[in-house]
C-alpha cells in the first residue's frame, strides 16, 4: 500500500482530520444533532459528495476496506472516482462487496445487505436541515430544533394527507432520532428508512457545502414521522428485478424503448449480483 | 343591618379640561341612606344632579369625595374607592342598574341580553333564559321578539329589555333611572308591580321617576338633590 507522493494520508492534513473527528464525536454524543464543522477545500466541487469524502478521509485507516456506492451502484462515474481517490491518497483496499467493507460511503441509498457491528456507513448529504423547504431561515430552524418543535413538518404531512390522502414524501423522509432530534436521512428512498432503526453499524452523515456533520450511533431508535392513523409506509415499485428476480429490494425503473417498454432492476448492484451469482451456482 | 346603601359626604364635580379646566360642581356632601325593602325617589329640579347621583352610586361616575358604602358579600365596601375588579364583582352580585338607554350589542338576541347578568351570577343557561323569558312576557314582549337582537326595537321595547335585564337577577340593591319614561300605562303598571315585589324581597331601591304618579305609587320617601350653583368657575 502506497499513498500518492505529496499527499497526507487520506488527503486531509492531520489537524483537519482532528477537527472533523471532534465534530464526529460530538455528533455521536448527540444523535441526530447537526454539528457545524470547518468544511475544507476538496478536489471536487460542492454538490459532489465533499461532505461524505471529508468524513471518510477523517476516519479511514490503512487497514480499512472501502466500498463506495452512488444510488446503490458501485459502477457509476462518481462512485468509481471516489473509490479511486481514496485508493490513491490512502492506499486502502477497496471492494464492491457490502459484507467485506469496513467503511461504506454512499450517495442516496442504504445497502440492501444488513450491516454489522464494526462497519461504518458514511452518507453524502446535500441539505442537512430536514425542515429547509418549509422554513428556509437557518436561525429559525435552529430554534425549532432547540425547542424540539417540529410542528411544521407535521403540518406538511397534514397538508399532504388533506390534499392527496397520503403523505407525499417518498425520499429524504424525515426521521426522529432517539426521540429527540428531527433528522434528514439524506435523499435515500423512504423504503430505506426502516434500515436506519437500530442498525448495528455506525451511521455518519456529512454535508460539505452546508458544513454540517451528524450521526446515528449503533442501535439507536430511528422513527419515521407519521400520524397514528396514517402510519409510515415504505414505498417500493411493485416489480421484480429482471436480473436476479428479487421482489424485496428497491428497484430502479429502466425505460428500454420509446414504446413504453421498461424493466426493473435492483438499485443495489452488489445485492443483485450476489443474488444472481447465488442462483447460477444453485443451478 | 339597618341600611343596604349609604353615602357619606358624597361630592361630585366635573372638571372640563377642554373648556379651559372649568370646574362644575354637581353634588356636595350628599348623605343618603337606603334601607332594605325601601324605595327612595330622588327629587329635585331638572339638572339638579339626580342622574349624576345615580351614576355615582353605580360607579359609572367617579366620586370626587366622600364614601359610597354598600353591603356586599358579608362585608361593607366603599364603592368610591373600590378598584375596578371589586366594582365589577359588586355589579355582578349586589348592585343592579336600569339605565334610560339600552346600549345595543349587535347580533345578540334579546333573551340572551336579559339572561346575561343572571349567568354572570352563576345561574345555568337554561334557568336564566327561562326567567328572562317569563319577565319579558310579563312586560308584554311577545315570544317572537325574544330571539331578535333589540337593535330594531322601538324605544319602549328597548326600555323593557333594560327593565327585564335589571329586575331578573334580584339584586339586593337596584338603581332605576327613569324606568317608565317610554312606557304606556299597562307597562307602567307592570313596572310598579315589579318594584313592589322587589321591595317585598328586601331590595333597596333608589330611583329617578319623572312620572310623579308612578313615583307616588312606589316611593317610600323622597330624597331631594339640591341644585347647586352650576356656573363653572375657573380653577
Amino acid at each position, binding site marked *: 500500500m502506497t499513498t500518492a507522493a505529496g499527499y497526507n494520508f487520506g488527503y486531509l492534513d492531520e489537524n483537519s482530520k482532528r477537527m472533523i473527528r471532534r465534530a464526529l464525536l460530538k455528533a455521536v454524543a448527540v444523535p441526530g444533532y447537526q454539528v457545524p464543522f470547518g468544511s475544507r477545500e476538496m478536489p471536487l466541487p460542492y454538490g459532489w459528495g465533499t461532505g461524505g469524502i471529508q468524513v471518510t478521509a477523517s476516519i479511514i485507516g490503512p487497514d480499512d476496506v472501502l466500498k463506495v456506492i452512488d444510488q446503490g451502484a458501485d459502477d457509476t462515474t462518481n462512485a468509481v472516482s471516489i473509490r479511486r481517490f481514496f485508493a490513491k491518497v490512502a492506499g486502502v483496499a477497496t471492494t464492491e462487496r457490502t459484507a467485506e467493507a469496513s467503511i461504506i460511503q454512499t450517495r442516496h441509498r442504504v445497502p440492501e445487505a444488513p450491516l454489522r457491528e464494526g462497519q461504518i456507513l458514511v452518507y453524502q448529504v446535500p441539505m442537512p436541515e430536514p425542515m429547509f423547504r418549509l422554513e428556509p431561515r437557518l436561525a429559525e430552524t435552529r430554534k425549532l430544533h432547540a425547542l424540539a418543535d417540529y410542528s411544521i413538518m407535521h403540518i406538511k404531512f*397534514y397538508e399532504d394527507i388533506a390534499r392527496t390522502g397520503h403523505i407525499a414524501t417518498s425520499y429524504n423522509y424525515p426521521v426522529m432520532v432517539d426521540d429527540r432530534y428531527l433528522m434528514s436521512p439524506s435523499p435515500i428512498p423512504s423504503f430505506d428508512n426502516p434500515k436506519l432503526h437500530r442498525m448495528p453499524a455506525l451511521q455518519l452523515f456529512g454535508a460539505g457545502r452546508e458544513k454540517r456533520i451528524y450521526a446515528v450511533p449503533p442501535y439507536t431508535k430511528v422513527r419515521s414521522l407519521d*400520524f397514528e392513523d396514517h402510519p409510515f409506509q415504505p414505498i417500493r415499485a411493485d416489480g421484480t428485478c429482471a436480473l436476479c428476480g428479487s421482489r424485496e429490494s428497491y428497484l430502479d425503473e429502466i425505460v428500454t424503448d420509446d414504446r413504453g417498454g421498461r424493466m426493473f432492476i435492483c438499485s443495489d448492484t452488489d445485492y443483485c449480483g450476489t443474488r444472481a451469482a447465488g442462483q447460477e451456482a444453485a443451478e | 343591618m339597618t341600611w343596604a346603601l349609604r353615602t357619606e359626604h358624597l361630592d361630585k364635580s366635573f372638571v372640563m379640561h377642554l373648556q379651559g379646566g372649568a370646574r362644575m360642581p354637581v353634588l356636595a356632601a350628599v348623605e343618603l341612606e337606603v334601607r332594605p325593602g325601601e324605595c327612595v325617589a330622588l327629587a329635585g329640579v331638572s339638572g339638579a344632579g339626580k342622574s349624576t347621583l345615580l351614576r355615582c352610586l353605580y360607579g359609572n361616575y*367617579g366620586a370626587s369625595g366622600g364614601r359610597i358604602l354598600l353591603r356586599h358579600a358579608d362585608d361593607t365596601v366603599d364603592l368610591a374607592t373600590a378598584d375596578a375588579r371589586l366594582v365589577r364583582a359588586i355589579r355582578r352580585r349586589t348592585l343592579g342598574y336600569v339605565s334610560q338607554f339600552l346600549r345595543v350589542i349587535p347580533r345578540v338576541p334579546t333573551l340572551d341580553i336579559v339572561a346575561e347578568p343572571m349567568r354572570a351570577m352563576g345561574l345555568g343557561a337554561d334557568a336564566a333564559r327561562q326567567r328572562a323569558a317569563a319577565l319579558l312576557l310579563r312586560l308584554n314582549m311577545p315570544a317572537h321578539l325574544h330571539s331578535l337582537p333589540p337593535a330594531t326595537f322601538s324605544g319602549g321595547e328597548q326600555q323593557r329589555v333594560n327593565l327585564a335585564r335589571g329586575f331578573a337577577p334580584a339584586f339586593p340593591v337596584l338603581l332605576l333611572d327613569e324606568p317608565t319614561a317610554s312606557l304606556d300605562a299597562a307597562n307602567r303598571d307592570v313596572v310598579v308591580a315589579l318594584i313592589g315585589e322587589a321591595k317585598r324581597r328586601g331590595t333597596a331601591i333608589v330611583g329617578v321617576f319623572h312620572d310623579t304618579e308612578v313615583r307616588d305609587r312606589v316611593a317610600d320617601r323622597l330624597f331631594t338633590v339640591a341644585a347647586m350653583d352650576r356656573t363653572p368657575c375657573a380653577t
Partner: protein
Amino acid sequence: MSPLLAAQGLGLRFGTVTALDDVAVEIWPGEVVAIVGESGSGKTTLLRVLSGMMPPQAGRVLYRDPEGGQHSLFDMPEIALRRLHRSDWGFVYQNPRDGLRLGISAGGNIGERLMAAGHRNYGHIRAIAAEWLARVEIDPGRIDTLPRNFSGGMQQRLQIARTLVTSPRLVFMDEPTGGLDVSVQARLLDMIRGLVAELDLAVLLVTHDISAARLLAHRIVVMQQGRVVEAGLTDRVLDDPQHPYTQLLTTSVLSA
C-alpha cells in the same frame, strides 16, 4: 390569587423618543383590558413588552403560570417563552398575514398548535379544526382552502381560531379589527365577545377604536406619549373621563 400578568415601572426609549414611561398594568383571569391611545401613544410597544417580544429598559413583567408559580418574563429562557406562546398564551396580529401561514390550508393552520402540543391523530386534528372553523363562523367545508383565498375578515377569524385551539388563558390582540370593513368589524367584535365569555379568556387588547373598547373591555388603559394617563373601569373612564387627553378622546368619537 394574583394577576395573570403584572407589569411595573416599564420604561423604553427608542433613541430620543420615549415609548414607555413608568407604565404599570395588570390583567386578571377572565378579564378584558383595552389599551387605547392614538398613534405614537406607545400602546403597541406596551403590547410587545407585555407579551415578551421586546424587553423594556426599565421595570419588569411578572407572569403567573397555571400552577401558580410566578416568573419574571424577561428572566425566563427563550425556550420557555416560546412554549408559552404556543400554549398558555395567544397573539392575534393586526394583519392576519402575520399570524397565519398563508400557504397552509385553514385546517392546517388551526391544527398547527395541536400538532406542536403532540397531537398525532390526523382524523382527530381535522375534526377539532372543523369544529373551530364553525365556532368562528367559517364554513367547515373550507377546511382545505388556503387563507390567501379568504376575505380579510375570514382571515382574522381564522387567526383567532388558530390561537384559541389550545385554550390559552391569555390572548394578546393588536388592533384585531384594523383594516376591516365596519360591518365586518362589528361581526368580529361580537364573535370575540362571545368567545371571551364562553372560554373565560383574559384578553389584552390594543386598539384606537374606543367603541370596540367599550364593547369588549372590562377595563381600559389610556395612553398618551408613553404614559398611562388614566385607567379604570371601561364605562367609568369613557363616561366620566378625568384626564384632559381622555376627555379629548371621548369627545372626538363620532357616533353614527
